[in-house]
Every structure is written in C-alpha cells, then in structure tokens.
C-alpha cells in the first residue's frame, strides 16, 4: 500500500499536512514544532499545496487567525509547542466554545520557568480543560495516522470541535524512524471535503459569531459542548475502524498491552510507553503478571472503558510526564477517577518522570515494576506521589 521511509516525527506531520492540503494555516515558530510549519511553508512556496499560509506575529494571533479562518468556512490547521500553546490558551477555549473544527499538531514540550525546550506533557495537560479533543501518539507513525483521524473526528457533524494531536518533542519530533505513508489519493478520500456550517463568508446569510452570553444561556452552551465532546469517543472508534481499512493499522481509545489477567498495571503516555513495553515483556517472561495501558484519547477521557481494561489489576502505577504542583499528576487523577467511579479500589501510586526531557530508560520502568511487586505482596503503598530519576 503505502511507501516506507525513514523520517523524523516533524517531517511526518509536515507530510501529513501536505496530504491534507488545508485551506488556511496560521502559525508561529517555536521549538520543537517549528520544522513542521517550516517544511509546510516550502510546500506552499513550491505550489504543492494551495493553502493560504498566515505567518502571524505570535501564537495568540495564530489561533485567532485560525478561529477567523475556520468560522469563515474552511479547513484550518496549525502547529505549536509549549509556550506557544500557553500563549494560545485564551483562544483555545474560544475555538472550542465556537465549535470550530481546527486541527493542531502539538509537539509536547516543557513549560518555563526555567525555560526548557525538551519534551514533557505539561503543555498538553495544561490545555486539558480547553475543550479540545486530544489524541496522544507514541511515535511518528501514530502521530501521522492520528492527524488524519483527528480531522475526521473534529469535523464530524455531531462534534464540530477542535482537536490536537500530541507527540513528544525531540524524542519523536527529531528522531528518525521508519514509517509508512499512505498514498495522497487515499488520504484525500479518507478526509473528504470540508463541510462548512454557518460560514461567515456566506454574505447572503449573515451570522453573528461570539456574542455576549449572560447567565440565562451560558451554562446551556457549556452543557451542549460537554455532550459534543463526549460523542467523540464513539466517533473516534468509528473513524479508527475506517482508518484500519485503508492502513491496516488498528487504533482504539487506548492501547492495552498484555493487560489481560495483569495484577500489576502501569499507565504510560506517548513515547515512554514504547520503552516500557519491552520491560513488561521481561517481567512476563519471569512469570510476573504485569501489563501496560497507553492512553490515546485523553479528551474526552474514556473512564468506563479504561476502568474495565484495568479491572483486574490490584496495583496500578500511573506515570505522569507533567505535574500538578500540590496535587497528583493529571493522568493519575483521571485513572483514579475512572477506578473509583467503577467501584474498584486498586492500590494506586503516581510517578512523576521525564520532566524537561529527562530520559526515561528501561531501568526506570524496571525499578518501578519491581517496587509494584513489593506493594502487591505487602498490600501497602508508601508515598503515593514520587519523582523518579531525580538526584538527591
């Protein structure tokens, strides 16, 4: 089917954007996502795409221009990282509140201060409540596959919400790996034509976007938004089934890895999950019943499905590559909510790892799983939230 190439994560996403050929892109440079737009700009300059590229003066304006362009009535994309996403924060809420299906690639990077350009999930998790659909990706292949699916989910008539596809900065964005590309016409057919809803450019049917909504209506709109994003669970699965037909690659709401009959479960997002899978295999070979769950759809969060997948585990360790200072990591809070709502009460611990791009090594996963076997034996957890790989 598709052709295989060794390529970086950023190049893969730029290639995906070329294939999507959006009507408008508005973006601003920021490490480590810059290369996506940089490569895309050369597609624009060479006439390989017919996108209007708006090279704005800030990420705030990037998202503002995306909002204007999307409301105008066409397909819109952007890319950013870290501080860029933080500067967009105000506008992220407005994109989702206006129900505009903008697609974004987020190359995950740590937040300042201190300034750091490397990969962690603080940016993505920090925008958790902005009303965007979030899909996380372990590697370049997943990021490439996810962005097409994100466009379909976002533009689905029951949803009409913006979506971001996340992948780890540098670890994936700048590393070369072998992956498969789908043919242009296959992608074109898969994503289909953009169907505008209330386009501003229809001057014969003038609409007002962004009115002042007082307490008499505000909560109704928020309730409707919750309903719409929750429908993304079902649509994500439908779109994944269609995507499997064109690619042979299957996706779900999350990826369970050797979770059946697992007594110990670890939850890990993005690239670190790949590292830990080998370690899980090693323990399994030793007869220890350990499994891994790698979330994919983080917003909306599939609480029931995840609780069911983790149902048999007696000990769960949730890894977070982002922190909520003075609280548990964001992923831990979601998993704990899922288990509690399902009436399960496994022993749960939270490990904060890899902030600011600190490597997550197989030895780290190994040490944690060993610790979990101890908890399983004694039935006692120590400190619930701990940092791993930190010098004393």
């Amino acid at each position, binding site marked *: 089917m598709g052709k295989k190439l060794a390529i970086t994560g950023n190049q893969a996403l730029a290639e995906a954007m070329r294939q999507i050929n959006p009507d408008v892109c508005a973006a601003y440079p920021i490490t480590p996502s810059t290369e996506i737009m940089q490569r895309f700009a050369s597609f624009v300059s060479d006439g390989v795409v017919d996108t209007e590229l708006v090279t704005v003066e800030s990420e705030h304006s990037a998202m503002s221009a995306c909002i204007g362009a999307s409301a105008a009535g066409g397909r819109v994309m952007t890319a950013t990282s870290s501080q860029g996403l933080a500067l967009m924060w105000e506008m992220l809420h407005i994109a989702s509140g*206006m*129900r505009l299906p903008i697609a974004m690639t987020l190359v995950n990077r740590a937040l300042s201060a201190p300034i750091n350009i490397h990969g962690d999930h603080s940016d993505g998790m920090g925008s958790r409540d902005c009303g965007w659909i979030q899909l996380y990706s372990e590697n370049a292949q997943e990021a490439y596959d996810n962005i097409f699916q994100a466009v379909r989910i976002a533009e689905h008539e029951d949803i*009409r919400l913006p979506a971001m596809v996340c992948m780890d900065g540098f670890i994936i964005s700048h590393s070369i790996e072998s992956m498969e590309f789908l043919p242009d016409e296959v992608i074109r057919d898969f994503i289909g034509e953009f169907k505008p*809803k209330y386009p501003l450019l229809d001057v014969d049917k003038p609409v*007002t*976007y962004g009115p002042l909504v007082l307490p008499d*209506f505000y909560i*109704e*709109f928020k309730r*409707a938004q919750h309903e719409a994003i929750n429908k993304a669970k079902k649509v994500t699965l439908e779109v994944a089934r269609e995507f499997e037909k064109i690619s042979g690659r299957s996706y779900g709401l999350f990826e369970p890895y050797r979770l059946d009959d697992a007594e110990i479960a670890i939850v890990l997002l993005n690239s670190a999950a790949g590292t830990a899978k080998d370690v899980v295999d090693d323990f399994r070979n030793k007869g220890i019943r350990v499994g891994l769950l790698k979330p994919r759809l983080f917003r909306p969060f599939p609480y029931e499905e995840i609780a069911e997948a983790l149902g048999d585990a007696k000990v769960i360790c949730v890894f977070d590559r982002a922190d909520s200072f003075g609280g548990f990591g964001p992923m831990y809070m979601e998993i704990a909510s899922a288990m509690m709502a399902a009436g399960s009460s496994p022993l749960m611990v939270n490990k904060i790892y890899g902030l600011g791009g600190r490597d997550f090594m197989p030895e780290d996963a190994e040490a944690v799983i060993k610790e979990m076997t101890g908890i399983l034996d004694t039935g006692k957890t120590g400190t619930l939230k701990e940092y791993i790989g930190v010098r004393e």
Partner: protein
Amino acid sequence: MKLKGWKELEIGAIIPEAGNAEQYNTGSWRASRPQWIEENCIQCLFCWIYCPDSSVTVKDSKRGEFDYGHCKGCGVCAHECPGKKGKKAIVMVEEGN
C-alpha cells in the same frame, strides 16, 4: 418567553438571525422623547445620519416619524437640528408629559 434548552440551541452561540436586535425594545430607556415638528423640517436628514440608534425613519429620502421602539431619547437629533428660521424641527419633551 420560554427560553430554549441546551439541545435546542444553535451550536457555539451562533446567532443566525441577522439584525434580530430590532425585536428588542430600547425605547423604554427614554427619559425624554424627541418630537418632530414637520413644518419646521427642512429635510436635511442630519437627525438621521447622527442618530446612534437608527431611530429616524426615512422613506424616499424624506424623514418620517421617530422609531420610538428603539429611540433612547439621547437628544443628539434635537441638538443637531438646524430647523427653519430659528425654529427647531425636533424638540425634546419629558416622558410622561
């Protein structure tokens, strides 16, 4: 008026009915009302061009009655009215009188 429930509203708070603010009455804000005295009117239409509330009706280039459903009684029209021979074509009268 029964307010719409969350399933009935347009998505994203979009208002598809352009200019429906016309249905909203701001005339009740008035403390004083402009009165048009036709015989003093030279049809300059300054009242129309300077009205903040689009409340001077004009048909075939001639002004008609005020739109009291929207006029807030600011008095800009009366202030700007040149009138005829020193007599204003718009005067402000206290509401309720």
